[in-house]
């Protein structure tokens, strides 16, 4: 195995285990912290795939901002912390569906793109330069649409979070 494959194995195991810990953790704050580990591992995988810019976006936005918002949300809503508060009756059914879909997808993807035939990692390298060229030339319209989406999200969040003086 090459160094990349070792690195990938470590990232995959750590990411996978902490992903399981996210949903099984009894304490929501711990769950959020496990989520950090999972997202970091995913960022690492992006890096291994040569998608450098996406990897850093993953770390800056997801780990740096989204999880922070999660923790804020926990503090703001006083989410119930502790045993059973996050449970419901469908956990076994949920597990069954989750495992079923996962197994099916692993099978299908493995059949279509067998691991044995995988090309070497180094062949692909998306530089920040290439990403910039792509976003700001062919995908200008989605890019500007994103700004409207962000604007709507912000305004909407403020409206919903705002204390009503009027009513």
């Amino acid at each position, binding site marked *: 195995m090459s160094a990349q494959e070792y690195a990938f194995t470590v990232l995959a195991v750590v990411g996978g285990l902490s992903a399981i810990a996210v949903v099984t953790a009894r304490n929501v704050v711990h769950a959020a912290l496990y989520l950090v580990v999972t997202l970091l591992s995913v960022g690492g995988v992006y890096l291994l795939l*040569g998608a450098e810019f996406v990897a850093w976006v993953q770390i800056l936005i997801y780990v740096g901002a989204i999880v922070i918002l999660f923790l*804020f949300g926990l503090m703001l*809503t006083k989410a119930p912390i502790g045993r059973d508060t996050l449970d419901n009756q469908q956990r076994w059914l949920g597990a069954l569906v989750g495992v079923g879909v996962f197994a099916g997808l692993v099978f299908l993807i493995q059949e279509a793109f067998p691991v044995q035939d995988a090309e070497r990692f180094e062949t692909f390298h998306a530089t920040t330069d290439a990403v*910039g060229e792509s976003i700001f030339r062919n995908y200008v319209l989605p890019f500007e649409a994103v*700004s409207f989406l*962000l604007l709507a999200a*912000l305004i909407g969040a*403020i409206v919903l979070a705002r*204390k009503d003086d009027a009513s």
Partner: protein
Amino acid sequence: MLTEYLPIVAMAVLAVAFGVASLVVSRMFRPHRPNPVKLSPYECGNDPVRLPRGERFSVKFYVVAMLFIIFDIEIIFLFPWAVRFRQLGLFGLVEMAFFIGLVFVAYIYVWRAGGLDWATSVEAPADADLASDSPRDPMAAADEELAAAMHDAEVAGAR
């Protein structure tokens, strides 16, 4: 390209190892003699009045967090744009100006809507009268606070 990340990996491994080692070593060598005073949370030398658990933050923090995310994402888009700036020319400048302009509108909105005002709306009466009480059993205080907060939530729900 990936070899450039080798020092970072080494750094990360060292950092984790240092953290784990510190905890393990101190656990092995420190004396373990707890008493209630030692176990109570440290609040700048004051007697702790309640446990932090169950305390609800002002919703204003949420607005700040949202603003943070929006601007964070905006800045991320600036990276590839800056790298590619010369080749994109005037067109790139205009589209980025438009993008930033949009987020700036959001900023104006938050500002005018009072999302950034803190002084005008200091409101936490339930916390205030709890804090003024003499020191009590922290758990009892926490329970009371929970009840108060639940009552608040009910009032809010009914509104």
